[in-house]
């Protein structure tokens, strides 16, 4: 999965370029994010704007990513679409992640 990485103040923003987080791509997605968040110990936000579909494997990957952050850091998700919100709400994982309507637009590229 292609992911754009940028930093805005204390926040690392990962913008997903694909349209799905599903069983077919969950493992490579998790690995790609693992490399991007290592050595960063502040807030991490995933911009979900382009994601049209999330399944239970994709949800599991998001939980695994939050565990990678270690300690008490919660993974933040921005601009979740209808299906993503529905899956999060049904499984009550909407209370586990920090949800935002939109990601901050500022920030410098950290590729």
């Amino acid at each position, binding site marked *: 999965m292609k992911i754009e990485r940028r930093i805005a103040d204390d926040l690392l923003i990962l913008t997903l370029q694909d349209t*799905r987080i*599903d*069983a*077919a*791509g969950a493992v490579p997605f998790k690995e790609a994010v693992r490399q991007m968040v290592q050595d960063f110990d502040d807030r991490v936000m995933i911009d979900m704007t382009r994601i*049209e*579909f999330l*399944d*239970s*494997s994709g*949800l*599991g*990957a998001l*939980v*695994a990513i*939050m*565990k990678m952050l270690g300690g*008490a*850091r*919660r993974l933040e998700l921005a601009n979740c679409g*209808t*299906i993503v919100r*529905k*899956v999060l709400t*049904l*499984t*009550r*994982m909407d*209370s*586990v992640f920090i949800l935002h309507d939109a990601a901050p637009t500022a920030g410098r590229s950290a590729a």
Partner: protein
Amino acid sequence: MTASRAAAMPSPQCAVLRSRFPATANDVSIQLARLHRAFDATGLRLSLQHDVTIVLGEVLNNIVEHAMTDIGAAWVMLEVTREDGRLHVETTDRGRPLPPALLASVDLPEAKLPIDDLPEGGFGWFIIHTLTEDMVYERQGGINRLSFSFLEQADEG
């Protein structure tokens, strides 16, 4: 709908999608994308399209992950059809039988836990049971058949 001709004369069955594809996660992605495009032409309400897609993603991935593990070159058949005001979905495969416990009921994994103890799986069947009312499973002649349906019009109230 008033006392309608539709009730007196059942509408003919109309296929939204019929396909046969290899039981792999990649092929499931491809089929769900095909379904998305097929739905565009139907004018069905979006919340119905979303629910069907979410449930079907879980059902198909379950077939790929659990029912087929020991069988090479396995195929899945998928049919999505409209009939009498309902959208019907049926999958068939020749994988292992489904564990009966999954069909009865499934608890939601606990969400109020420390981060390190949160579940990373076990959501699939909970999602399926929550969004469907009439899931039927049959095993006959080595074939699994799962079917479920949704009302095309949203329930009022």
